[in-house]
């Protein structure tokens, strides 16, 4: 039995049970079901992992009381918590404001979940494991991802609540600001590999230098810079701390989610995690070698397992960031995007162009290539970084002693 193609064999076996005319339909339906069940469960366990991990990062224990019904003795380290949360969310009262736009208010959570799920279609989960093989996969991914911003504004507008509307506008400002560095950080990869297809980008990162250093994009100067920009922008795009201003509880009483309760609220929550998972998956594909194993002798482990390991690693890193950093102010947030990330990402684009032009250099010129490329990353980073908070810090207090 070949573990590598096991999911495909299983799918083909189920498809073969149906009559020929229905097979294309069953084929796609199976892909959709697999994504929905797998990432639905993945979402559930991400929430408990996040709560546990955050607790440990802050010297707490985290949820550990929920067990199984009728088996009170079995605590299972609280791993059944997400199911208890789901039951709670479903059984809660769904309050809709009397003056709300009923249609928009209802549609917003549906739309946001639908669009955030679309991204999974083009992620190469393994060597042969990609739900939809698209030539313009990255274009499609960002088109689907950007549509979630529409849903956030739908929620803010449809709630007919001042907090919701203001927060939704703030969220739009943030999301549009960070859409730019996010896409600009991805463009160098497309420039170097020369394709928009995610499976081909993952394939292009195979092989090792001297047998140990994998050819992942993150191990090049432009790729590293792109990856860091991508990480920051992905954090902001998925509304995660330290960029969680759209739903800043302490300032905006949960922002565009103010008028949502029960399962609709859970849907927004779900969409946020789906978006985060999909963006992490894209980051893994573009920069961390996709489903490629880090070492040649580890290639016996199936590729989809490698992809999931890296994806989980990315999510753990995002949780770690959330447990560490404080929320930014809205002006700091937009300043970081427009004055820092966008110029760096643009320079990085030039860096990638230099990298492709010098692909033929050999001998000592390789060192020159790496040196120049690293300089294009580091020098602007230091210069821009010094200018970023010039005049803003240290803060002086006029009336405080």
């Amino acid at each position, binding site marked *: 039995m070949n573990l590598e193609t096991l999911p495909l064999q299983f799918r083909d076996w189920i498809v073969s049970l149906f009559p020929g005319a229905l097979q294309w339909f069953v084929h796609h339906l199976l892909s959709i079901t697999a994504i929905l069940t797998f990432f639905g469960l993945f979402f559930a366990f991400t929430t408990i992992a996040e709560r546990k*991990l955050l607790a*440990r990062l802050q*010297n*707490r*224990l985290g949820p550990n009381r929920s067990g199984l019904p009728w088996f009170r003795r079995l605590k299972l380290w609280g791993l059944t918590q997400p199911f208890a949360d789901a039951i709670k969310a479903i059984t809660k009262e769904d309050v809709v404001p009397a003056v709300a736009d009923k249609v928009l208010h209802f549609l917003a959570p549906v739309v946001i979940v639908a669009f955030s799920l679309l991204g999974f279609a083009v992620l190469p989960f393994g060597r042969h494991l990609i739900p939809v093989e698209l030539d313009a996969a990255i274009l499609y991914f960002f088109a689907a991802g950007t549509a979630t911003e529409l849903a956030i504004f739908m929620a803010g507008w449809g709630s007919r609540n001042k907090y919701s509307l203001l927060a939704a506008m703030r969220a739009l400002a943030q999301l549009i600001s960070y859409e730019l560095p996010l896409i600009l950080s991805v463009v160098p990869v497309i420039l170097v590999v020369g394709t928009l297809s995610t499976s081909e980008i993952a394939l292009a990162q195979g092989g090792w230098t001297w047998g140990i250093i994998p050819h992942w994009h993150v191990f090049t100067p432009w790729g590293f810079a792109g990856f860091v920009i991508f990480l920051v922008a992905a954090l902001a795009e998925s509304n995660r701390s330290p960029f969680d201003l759209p739903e800043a509880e302490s300032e905006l009483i949960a922002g565009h989610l103010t008028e949502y309760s029960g399962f609709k609220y859970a849907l927004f929550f779900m969409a946020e995690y789906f978006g985060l998972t999909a963006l992490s998956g894209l980051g893994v594909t573009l920069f961390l070698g996709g489903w490629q194993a880090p070492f040649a002798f580890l290639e016996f482990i199936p590729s989809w397992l490698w992809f999931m390991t890296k994806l989980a690693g990315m999510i753990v890193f995002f949780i*770690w960031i959330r447990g560490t*950093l404080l929320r930014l102010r809205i002006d700091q947030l937009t300043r970081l995007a427009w004055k820092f990330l966008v110029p760096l990402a643009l320079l990085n684009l030039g860096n990638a162009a230099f990298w492709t032009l010098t692909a033929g250099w050999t001998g000592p010129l390789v060192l020159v290539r790496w040196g120049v490329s690293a300089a294009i990353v580091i020098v602007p980073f*230091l210069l821009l970084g010094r200018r*970023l908070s010039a005049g803003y810090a240290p803060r002086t207090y006029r009336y405080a002693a």
Partner: protein
Amino acid sequence: MLGSGILKGLGVTAKNFVGSYHDPKRMVTEEYPDTPAKLPEAYRNFPFLVTENATDPMGTLRCVACQICEKECPPQCIYIEKSKDKKPDATGKPQLYPAVFAIDTAVCMSCQLCVEVCPFDAIKMDQVFAVAATNRFEGLLLNREQLAKPNEYFHQIRPTEAAEVDGRLTAERKAAEEKAKAAAAAKAAAPAKPAAPAATPAPKPAEGGTAS
């Protein structure tokens, strides 16, 4: 450099994460209902009556029903009835004992004044805090059977104070014993009055809990 603070912060939380698994200083959470709460030694809540012997709590109460605590209690939550007869105490001296000793815990404010005034070290502060009753009148009125707890228990909850009290009591009893011996010797030396009661041997601190 920009970003160095972020890396430093990530280091701090990473240390927290690793430390929470092996360093008790970083993981201070007590899972209270599962594991008993660790109380500081000085924690006090509601008084209890000290008995010398756990096997015979009612026979070895240190309390001699002098009623000082009853008179002293600010919220008047102690009720004592003296016994009609006398029982020998730990030193063998016949003493009164409380026929009824009740504390209304609904009224008690855990001020420790009863403990302060007791000349016999018979009442001490307990550390119970998980108290509940189904009836707020009889349920919260504790009688002497419920209040009596052995000296070993006192050693368990407050070892330093218990050791100090025990040391003092044994010293006092020893002194009393020696004094009685000396008196007996003096009486034996004086041949004028060969009275029978003086010839009885001096009382000994024979009862169980005193030596602990």
